[in-house]
């Protein structure tokens, strides 16, 4: 059988963002892989150094649209660590709510795209329509469908009135039933199973070796959920059930994402029930001393780490972040070989790559 090389990308119909893969194939089977990135580099680490601490809240939010809440959230946590700011308890709970609602929208988007790639477009449309419930909730509570602008230094910028809490409970309840339906389809539908089961295998030991994070790790039986392993914000006060699957394939990762959505609804409901009274944000302008800090959080795609160094002025001296996709895309070297050419976009989507975060 002849061996040849085919290019996939940088602009590929099935992927939302540009990434270039040089795939070596033997007949229809993938044998090797070369990943080239760097098509959407925007120099944001440098931009962050030219802006003050407040402007960077907005800048980091625009790193990526799907995990846009986690970036300013983690950035603010790093800043608060340096300045020793104590966030009011209500603010901590509101931060968790904002984070989980973004997780629902992000995971629904990815599972929807998965259906689109396997050619099940009516399921894709249905999942995206369910996602509209979440989008409407975000627009009503935060004022925007994607960029929540919830976080600020020392707390959050939004508050939940009793009316809004009721609205949110109603919206979360209306998500449950359609969600159960689609979980059943992703788990049991013959067509979906035929395309996702046994595809893109990442064994547990390889998952540990590559240090993958988030749903990719949990789909291979590795539990490294930051929300449980090193709780931040209000996560130590609520119960988080981590979903771990042992299938190690595309199907397992999709199921982890869907189960994460159900868990996110559960977390939001816990938060709304326990929501303490009081201020949502500090009521003074913070003074940031010279220092450095690392903060991390569990983004929809996995562990997100921020490193921040300040020098006493209100411009950061260094701001660096390590995003989940950076850890996950190397594991494609394990997932790809042995699979068919038609499964390439499916396997890439199963790590939920966020190129705009990774290349910033």
């Amino acid at each position, binding site marked *: 059988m002849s061996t040849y090389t085919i290019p996939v990308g940088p602009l590929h119909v099935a992927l939302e963002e540009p990434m270039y893969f040089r795939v070596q194939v033997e007949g229809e089977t993938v044998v090797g892989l070369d990943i080239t990135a760097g098509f959407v580099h925007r120099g944001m680490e440098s931009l962050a150094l030219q*802006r*003050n601490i*407040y*402007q*960077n*809240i*907005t*800048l980091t*939010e*625009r790193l990526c649209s799907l995990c846009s809440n986690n970036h300013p959230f983690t950035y603010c946590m790093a800043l608060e660590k340096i300045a020793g700011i104590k966030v009011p308890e209500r603010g901590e709970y509101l931060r968790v709510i904002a984070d989980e609602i973004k997780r629902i929208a992000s995971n629904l988007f990815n599972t929807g795209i998965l259906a689109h790639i396997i050619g099940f477009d*009516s*399921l894709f*449309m*249905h999942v995206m*329509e369910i996602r*509209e419930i979440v989008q*409407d909730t975000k*627009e*009503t*509570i*935060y*004022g*925007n469908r994607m*960029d929540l*602008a919830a976080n*600020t230094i020392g707390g959050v*910028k939004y508050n939940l009135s009793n009316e809004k809490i009721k609205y949110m409970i109603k919206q979360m309840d209306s998500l449950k039933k359609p969600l159960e*339906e689609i979980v*059943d*389809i992703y788990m*049991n*539908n*013959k*067509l979906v199973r035929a395309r996702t089961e046994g595809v893109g295998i990442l064994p547990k030991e390889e998952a540990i070796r590559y240090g993958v994070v988030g749903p990719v790790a949990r789909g291979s039986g590795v539990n490294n959920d930051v929300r449980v392993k090193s709780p931040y914000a209000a996560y130590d006060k609520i119960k988080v059930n981590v979903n771990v699957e042992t299938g190690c394939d595309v199907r397992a990762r999709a199921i982890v994402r869907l189960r994460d959505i159900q868990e996110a609804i559960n977390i939001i409901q816990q938060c709304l029930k326990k929501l303490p009274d009081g201020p949502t944000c500090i009521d003074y302008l913070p003074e940031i001393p010279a220092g450095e800090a690392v903060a991390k959080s569990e983004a929809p795609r996995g562990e997100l780490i921020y490193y921040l160094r300040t020098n006493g002025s209100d411009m950061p001296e260094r701001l660096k972040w390590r995003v989940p996709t950076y850890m996950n895309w190397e594991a494609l070297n394990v997932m790809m070989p042995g699979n068919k050419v038609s499964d390439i976009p499916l396997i890439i989507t199963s790590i939920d790559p966020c190129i705009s975060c990774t290349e910033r």
Partner: protein
Amino acid sequence: MSSFLKIAIRNLLKGPSTDPYPFGETFVPKGLRGKVKYNAKACVACRMCEHVCAGGAIQIREVADKSGLEFILWHNTCAFCGLCEHYCPTKAIRLTEDYHTAHRQEDKYRYVEKGFIKYVNCARCATPMVPIALELLNVAYDQVNEDIEKLRHLCPKCRQERAL
């Protein structure tokens, strides 16, 4: 497959879920972060909005004849993040629910929110100063009495002398 067929038929019977916009109404919740509105009367020119604005959309400058300060916000540079509203002590700046930002290419540089803060003269020494908004007094004091009301019309220097 049959499980999804049920859902597909149900969706079909529900009809289209898209809004007929721009020919009809669309979903606009209260609290949507849209175009900024500025109220010069409540502004105390602390310039915090200018400082926190990520895009540099806000500028506060003294006008050429030195009769006051001019506030300009470029709608095309605004990111609708709402930091200016959050940090404004008197809420002179706020985001409205108006999301309509379509305009002609030739109006590109005129598509701004403007305001003018006219200097007032100090009641004692007649030095021009930024008027102190009532909204600021309400933030600083529980109750604004006559004495405080008098201080409002004095420049910082005269205020200090009077207080001592």
